[in-house]
């Protein structure tokens, strides 16, 4: 798997990340060697094998939707970088 400049651009876009030029060059090299190793998985014959997500095969667990956490609004808001008295502020989202 070749790691191209275009792929790095695409992955930065997907991850909402912007790398410095130096980090970008290092990332190309590192992802290249990591993907080179990961490609070893192609040697494994998985014909007819069902992909497995959960090892115990547990399914959804249902419960009543009840409020149990109490009022911790202030504690939650206090963690936001931008806030006023009782709301979290965000930059303008539409014009």
């Amino acid at each position: 798997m070749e790691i191209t400049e275009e792929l790095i651009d695409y992955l930065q876009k997907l991850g909402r990340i912007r790398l410095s030029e130096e980090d970008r060059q290092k990332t190309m090299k590192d992802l290249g060697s990591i993907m080179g190793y990961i490609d070893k998985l192609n040697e494994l014959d998985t014909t007819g094998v069902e992909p497995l997500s959960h090892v115990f095969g547990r399914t959804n667990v249902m419960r009543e939707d009840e409020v149990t956490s109490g009022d911790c609004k202030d504690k939650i808001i206090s963690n936001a970088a931008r806030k006023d008295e009782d709301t979290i502020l965000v930059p303008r989202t539409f014009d």
Partner: protein
Amino acid sequence: MDSEQIIKLSALELGKAIRNKETTSEEATKAYLDAIKENDGKYNSYITVREEALAEARIIDEKIASGELTGAFAGVPVAVKDNMCTEGVLTTCGSNMLHNFVPPYDATAVRKLKEEGMVIIGKTNMDEFAMGSTTETSFFGPTVNPWGENRVPGGSSGGSAACVAAKLAPISLGSDTGGSIRQPASFCGITGLKPTYGKVSRYGLVAFGSSLDQIGPMGRDALDVAYMLNVISGEDPKDQSSAPTDKLDLEAVKNFDVSGKTIGLPEQYFAEGMDEDVRARVMEAVKLLEQAGAKVETFPMPIMDYAIPTYYIICCAEACSNLSRYDGIKYGYAPEDVDDLMELYIRSRSEGFGMEVKRRIMLGNFVLSSGYYDAYYNKALQAKALIKKAFDEAFSKYDVVIGPVAPTAALKAGESLSDPLKMYLGDICTVLINIVGVPAISVPCGFTSDNLPVGMQIIGKHFDEQTIMGFAYAYERLSKEAKQ
């Protein structure tokens, strides 16, 4: 009892001394806070040290005196890895992204420590977002292994391992996504258990790889670890992957007889690339168990060759999804001078995350992106099915599977940072266990010629912590007898 005596005790011994009024929780907490003040400058095992623990210990002493708290760990200080939410106490995950995050609630495991009457003395250092095997990727600087100042403590729970090894905490909690409890336990010469997936609630554990993450105890010996598992385990309505399970029978752990039990040794765990000293120490430990009557057999596990690619695909895929929540708005790092929403996202993430985290987000997005999903992510889930099958087959024949925890003892500082692939390859012995969700423990089994600790990994069936704890305790006893 003086401080020097206090910090020598195991957590169970200390709890007993407090119950017997030979010391108090306050005295014990003070002894550890003093020890941290004096010595943690060398190790950097803590990110946050809690002076206010002393006042909490006084209240706990009253509750012990009144009979309200009766647990074996009541009054015992404990250190918690900094990726578990602690209400009102900074929880950084070793990252600039969460450098100022104060959780509004406790993780379930943390709540259970408090219900037992334990005193949280601090939050321990870790690789950023638990991504790393050396505790060198922490935003708060690397942790140093107490066994050698130029050696890494392992990771990602390096702080939780180093503080127990350096006697800056009697016991700690770590978390393990691909070896992050077992490998630092091995590198620092302590005992660390990754429980079965679902045994301990993940509620309030900052998510990394949700199908792999598990909280577990790290302590000075097997009994401390066994009792701590009983404190923190149990089904939790707040984590729907947690499962109803039994508590360990501690008397049965103590009386466990290895005679007639079967041990499987996967050939690949002892193959080329394994450090000679590590191999020798683990084999000597197995020999002791064999002499005590266990039946030992080697068996092939060729699927191990695919462990690292499968693990890194799955964990990065899950990590990039989990870490998409860090947007600079609800909590965490955000630059001040931005008024465009997309720019806020990008700059918060680019400046808040370190390089290893960014690398894994990019890898994860890659294996999940359209066009590559089938070739990588789906292929990894197929490999996971085959890995599970290999373990099912092994456990149809053996009570436990034993191997080393890592191919080497503690690495030199700085060795892995420059070459991430090399660091990933060091996880070869631990990652399979998280993929399959089975429990495994790292037990100290001697030293290399450089005087660095070596860990033996005992792997058990799903929810069969009883057997691996029995083996761990039996080995501890046998190795003590052998030394006499």
